[in-house]
């Protein structure tokens, strides 16, 4: 529920900012399509990264609970996985920011 709330909030914020960002000389249809694409892109990225991070953390906690001696190795592997997943989310954010505010194909 909390994840859904954050995704919805993110989508609304991005769509709200999109209208402010673009000047009126761009076709409104294009602006709305870009806003929808950005919202969908960020939503899908957050959804996938959230599921991935949740599954990784769940497995790490289970592994540590079953075998506390292996917690060091598990934590390192978890850290690597989390860093990769978080990088993907940050890339998605950068691409969406470019689409919204620094789109090379608009204006």
């Amino acid at each position, binding site marked *: 529920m909390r994840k859904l709330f954050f995704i919805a909030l993110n989508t609304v914020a991005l769509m709200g900012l999109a209208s402010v960002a673009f000047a009126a000389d761009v076709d409104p249809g294009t602006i709305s399509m870009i806003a929808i694409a950005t919202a969908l892109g960020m939503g899908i990225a957050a959804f996938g990264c959230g599921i991935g991070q949740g599954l990784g953390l769940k497995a790490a906690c289970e592994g540590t609970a079953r075998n506390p001696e292996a*917690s060091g190795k598990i934590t390192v592997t978890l850290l690597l996985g989390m*860093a990769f997943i978080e*990088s993907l989310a940050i890339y998605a954010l950068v691409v969406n920011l470019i689409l919204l505010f620094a789109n090379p194909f608009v204006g």
Partner: protein
Amino acid sequence: MRQLGRINLKIETFLRRSGFHLDDVRILVRNQIYLFFLGCALVVLFRLAPWAVAFGAGCALSTLNFWHLAKGLQSIVHNPDGAVAASLIRFYGRLALSGLALFGLIIWASLPLAALIAGLSTVIVNILFWGVFRFHRQKVKEA
């Protein structure tokens, strides 16, 4: 070479004091700090050229993120009390700050995007190199 070893030792002692108890995590964070210093050196060497600033900013952002991620994960896995609320606040705070920083860098500062993404990718490069060296060392030990 000996000088580098001393610097490594100093940084690792500092990291141990800061709460990084696992050796591998400490090495990863140490290497990321080196990459951050590389970004800073490029900024100074190229006298605030936009691409160098973008790379340095990307390095700084990814280093900060990685530092807090590593520290947070250790506390999540090893803390017997759980500390769920603190972890959540830390995670979303970091995410919001990263988003704001990227917004500022891309829209207000209009920095070169390729260099910024290269700076953000230093964590991936760090982890990949660490994995390759570790794999190589393991193979050498087995042989």
